């Protein structure tokens, strides 16, 4: 087992990372994403990488094809068969509005109304059948949907998490007459209460399953034509991966899998650097994705909304997106306040500095102005960034109204952006009950390392880990992922009434389902690990705390003790008078692969001076400083550099502010001591 390839298909570019653990070498490639036929771009990239398909052992693929199809409402044509009286659940949602203030705007349901049909059936909250399933009605509905040209169908009945019998039978009937595999019942995706959220998750799945499985099928086919003999693997949002052969039934898990892979890679790299608690900040052109890694593992949540009115309740690495990227536009609002984002210049026209016709100053332009980004090496721009225009626009749009010169304006833009990002990072840490000061910070994405030191100082985070390839983290995550599947079942029962045997029964049923899936995938794994977690709350509350099982066997008393302890630690509150409830039982099955040896990134020994490309003037805290520029790929192991310095590489730029120092570690990470805290920095 030696050759692994990770592929991350983004909206604009597709990244490839090739790792040969025997010859201890790696290469990367970047090709434009081919929107018309993504599989073509995929094959072109493999070729660019110079990888012969027959020699590849692991090929793992992350894709946003599904996510975008849902967001743009151009996924497969979907239909719904549901409980009589409830066909509008997907359109009514939870009675919200797009923004807290302002009453304009609208919402387009995932499945249009005329393709949502009802059948007689009803199960109550305790799982009793109130109205038996109208089997003929189900067949008629299925036939009617087929006539309407529906390709993918959702069967979604009330309380199917408590008793899936009617849903299961209806799915069986529909599958009997449906011409393809795209039939899904809500409980097959998740057995969790809340009809809108479960239905929305199933509808997201139904919308992308045909799109994703067609695409993955095409890639797998081409690969095998080219001689690839292994199973193609697909990245999931939970940070694990699955075999391409099961992607049709697990399609919903691929949503947001690219960013998830990045966080997974961050966890592994940070671990190698001895950091087990990490905040990650992935800053690209349009957004900043933040996530937490606690005790070496990315925090996973099952409470994400993909967009307004589109909740998705499968476990996903908890990534919080803020509309602040390199392309975010800076402006003065009517109150005279400096604002950065959320409007973005996007990839076209992009920042002024990219010379594609952009006219509004962006965060990237501010970095050009301050000398932090190298204006002479802009991908695809002849003769470098148009610095005169950058200066003029910054001065006119930001500097003049605020009484600042161009550098002052650029500096203000960076500072406001950093404050915005820091605030968001603080809030997501606190929401999860953590203090950011206890964490290391790992910046990645093209623009993440640019602002890392400022951001860390703002949050009083003492240490930063900059990965060797900040722009290829998602592709690396694909290579590092294990096979993983998650299961959930709702209990919603007070502890006093719990039957331990019943809970254990659910746990082992979920574990068995996981093993069965794993067996079907035929992926070679070293070890199978099964983990159980429990969602608990006090009666009357809405927010659960999730706890792992202590030890090997379930002991309800221990679990209860742990819950009280966790509640005390999280909220500094004791509530002996309240009734604890077990809400959900969650099972995760992980097929561990042979670990990838990260020492392939081990830098060579050598002379730091050889890595030095020169120097330029860079603006730090009110003055221009002569700043050393280093080439990342040439930095030797254990080298130490002190700020002010800039480290450049093809996929990213890292700014080391004055007062901070960085050291190159064993696997090529830069370990940064930020030196002084936020207060000192001012």
């Amino acid at each position, binding site marked *: 087992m030696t050759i692994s390839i990770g592929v991350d298909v983004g909206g604009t570019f597709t990244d490839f990372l090739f790792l040969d653990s025997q010859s201890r070498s790696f290469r990367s490639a970047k090709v434009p994403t081919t929107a018309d036929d993504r599989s073509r771009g995929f094959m072109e990239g493999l070729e660019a990488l110079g990888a012969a398909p027959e020699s590849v052992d692991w090929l793992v693929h992350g894709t946003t094809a599904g996510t975008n199809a849902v967001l743009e409402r151009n996924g497969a044509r979907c239909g719904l068969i549901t409980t009589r*009286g*409830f066909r*509008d*659940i997907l*359109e*009514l949602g*939870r*009675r*919200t*509005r797009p*923004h*807290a*203030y*302002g*009453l*304009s705007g*609208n*919402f387009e349901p995932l499945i*249009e*109304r*005329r393709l*949502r049909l*009802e059948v007689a059936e009803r199960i*109550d909250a305790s799982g009793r059948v109130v109205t038996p399933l109208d089997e003929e009605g189900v067949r008629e509905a299925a036939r009617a949907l087929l006539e309407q040209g529906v390709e993918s169908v959702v069967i979604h009945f*009330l*309380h199917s998490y408590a008793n899936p019998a009617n849903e299961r039978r209806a799915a069986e009937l529909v599958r009997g007459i449906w011409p393809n595999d795209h039939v899904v019942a809500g409980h097959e995706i998740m057995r969790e*209460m*809340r*009809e809108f*959220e479960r239905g929305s998750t199933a509808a997201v799945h139904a919308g992308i399953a045909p799109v994703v499985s067609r695409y993955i099928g095409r890639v797998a086919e081409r690969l095998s034509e080219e001689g690839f003999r292994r199973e193609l693997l697909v990245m999931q949002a939970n940070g694990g991966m699955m075999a391409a052969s099961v992607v049709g039934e697990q399609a919903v898990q691929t949503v947001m899998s690219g960013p998830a892979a990045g966080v997974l890679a961050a966890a592994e790299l940070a671990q190698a650097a001895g950091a087990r608690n990490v905040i990650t900040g992935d800053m690209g052109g349009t957004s900043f994705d933040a996530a937490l890694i606690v005790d070496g593992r990315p925090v996973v949540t099952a409470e994400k909304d993909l967009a307004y009115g589109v909740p998705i309740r499968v476990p996903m690495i908890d990534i919080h997106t803020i509309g602040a990227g390199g392309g975010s536009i800076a402006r003065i609002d*009517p*109150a*005279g*306040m400096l*604002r950065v984002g959320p409007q973005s210049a996007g990839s076209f026209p992009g920042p002024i500095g990219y010379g594609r016709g952009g006219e509004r100053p962006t965060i990237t332009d501010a970095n050009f102005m301050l000398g932090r980004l190298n204006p002479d090496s802009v991908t695809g721009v002849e003769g470098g960034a148009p610095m005169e225009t950058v200066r003029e626009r910054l001065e006119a749009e930001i*500097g003049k109204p*605020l*009484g*600042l*010169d161009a*550098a*002052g304006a650029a*500096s*203000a833009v960076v*500072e*406001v952006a950093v*404050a*915005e990002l820091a*605030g968001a990072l603080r*809030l997501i840490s606190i929401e999860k009950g953590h203090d950011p000061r206890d964490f290391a910070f790992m910046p990645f994405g093209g623009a993440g390392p640019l602002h890392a030191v400022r951001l860390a100082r703002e949050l009083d985070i003492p240490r930063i880990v900059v990965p060797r390839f900040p722009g290829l983290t998602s592709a690396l995550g694909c290579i590092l992922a294990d096979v993983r599947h998650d299961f959930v079942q709702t209990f919603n029962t007070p502890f006093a009434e719990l039957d331990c045997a019943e809970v254990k029964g659910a746990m082992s049923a979920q574990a068995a389902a996981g093993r069965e899936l794993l067996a079907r995938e035929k992926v070679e794994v070293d070890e199978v690990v099964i983990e159980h977690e429990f969602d608990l709350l*006090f*009666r*009357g*509350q*809405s*927010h659960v705390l999730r706890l792992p099982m202590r030890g090997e066997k379930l002991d309800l008393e221990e679990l209860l003790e742990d819950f009280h302890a966790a509640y005390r630690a999280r*909220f500094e*509150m004791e509530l002996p008078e*309240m009734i604890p409830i077990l809400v959900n039982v969650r099972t995760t099955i992980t097929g561990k692969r042979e670990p990838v040896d990260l020492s392939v990134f081990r830098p060579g020994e050598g002379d730091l001076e050889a890595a030095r490309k020169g120097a330029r003037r860079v603006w730090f805290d009110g003055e221009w400083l002569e700043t050393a520029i280093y080439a990342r790929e040439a930095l030797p192991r254990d080298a130490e550099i002190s700020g002010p310095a800039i480290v450049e590489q093809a996929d990213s730029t890292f700014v080391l502010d004055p007062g901070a120092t960085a050291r190159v570690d064993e696997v090529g990470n830069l370990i940064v001591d930020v030196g002084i805290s*936020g207060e000192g920095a001012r």
Partner: protein
Amino acid sequence: MTGTMDKTRLDPVTLTVIEKGLQQICSEMDLVHEKTSFSPVISEAFDRSNGIYGREDGRMIAQGEMGLPIFLGVMQETTRCVIEERSDLEDGDVILVNDPYRGGTHLMDVKMVRPFHYRGRLWCWLSNTGHWPDTGGMVPGGFNSTATEIHQEGLRIPPVKLVEGGVMDEEIVKIVLANIRVAQERIGDIKAQIAALAAGARRLTALLDRYGEETVEAALVELEDRSEQMMRAHLEGIPDGVYKATAWMDSDGVVDEPLAIRVKATVTGSDIAFDLSESSPPCKGPMNSVWATTLSSVYVALKHIFPDVPMNAGCFRPIRVEPPKGTFLYAEYPRPVAGCAAEVSQRIMESVFLALSEAIPDKLFAAPAGTSGNLSLGGFDPETGEEYIMYYFSGGGYGGWWEGDGLTNGCSTIGISKSQPVEILEQRYPLLFDRYALREGSGGDGRYRGGFGVSYRVRLLRGEGKASFLMEHGRTGPPGILGGKAGAPNRIHISRAGGIDTPEHISKGEGYALSAGDWIDVETPGGGGYGDPAERSAEARAADRAQGYYGEDEGGAA
């Protein structure tokens, strides 16, 4: 700092950073409050608000963006009343208050106010409010529709010291808990509210340590000026003139006569004055509004029209609202007020929207459903052997707007809360929903039609229960603007022992005794239409027909 600065009193970066910092403190308070609450109204429906208020007068410095909109103006009034009445407060004290006449809303919104001290002196006030599921009174949940004085509505708490020097006064807690239903969980909500204020105090201390008192105080002054400047820029865009409109309420729940909210908005340059004095006199039933709620309603209406204005006391400066003494919008002791926060407030907002719709049609929407649509149901479940109180708020259609059709099943305009899932309601209460559907045909016609209301039927499964309704827009639907038609009005039907009733007051009624098998049908209002229906495109009409929005398809809901 960087660059040169001479024009501003404070450098622009620090100003923006402090503004964000203050907002984040409020958001953190909101978060702690929400995550630890027992009241589903708070944790699931976000019916709470946390903020920072001025030392001398309680003016709003910052308030959480995740908080319920109606508290936008209310909380500064609450804080002001506490400042006026209690000069004996020390660091570590927390005041408890829910008195509607002292800067309040209805009794269920229970406020806490904490003096915040920095380096040994009072620096500002931290206050919050949370909607408790019950504060006693004649109906479970407090949303009565027939009270004729406040004492029937529940426990009224003047500003009292709940916490003194960091120690909770158990005696006060005992009195409170003895007077409310489902009391055992409220201690959890009390602790949650205190914890949120404590979190705010910690973070505010850190902010002041970092930037220094002087800088932060200078920033506060500047931020208020900026906010005012932005509001004025918007108001300048409204042509000078006098704009009038009337919103009609069905009744006060006791006397079956409509109530009029008559607004006169006078725009002069960048100032706007609201006169509500021609509105109906104080009413006998609980549809009176207290001053804080009336004032806040006008503020929230403007914030909905100009959502980008940052929230602090500065943006209120160009707005003058004459206290409408002698009307039902300026309730004084002992007038009952249960309907003011959820119902009257929304209709005051409607009157503001209608008045300004002709002046700035490119920024306005036709009337939204305008009711919280509250159904309260209390009873005893023989299966669990426990009493229960449910209240269920429903959404309705929003009005068509300048670029599109109205939103279907939008939240009340004073709230931002989610409705509870049917599966959770059926878990918690002995109920079964026969239907929870889009109400076909309810959106008012127009160039851009209104959004649709909802239509549901809920059946009692076991035991006996009592239902109450506090809804609105039953007589007439939410009006359209610029020639658009009104949305469908609210409808309620109650089926008992075979007979079907509608409440005498159309949208309000109390104490409907239900037995197992009885059901309630509720159909909530659709939004008003925007513009002449003749201008609606043929494609839009064809799409509406195809989707069965006007009841012509075959898949149809039962």
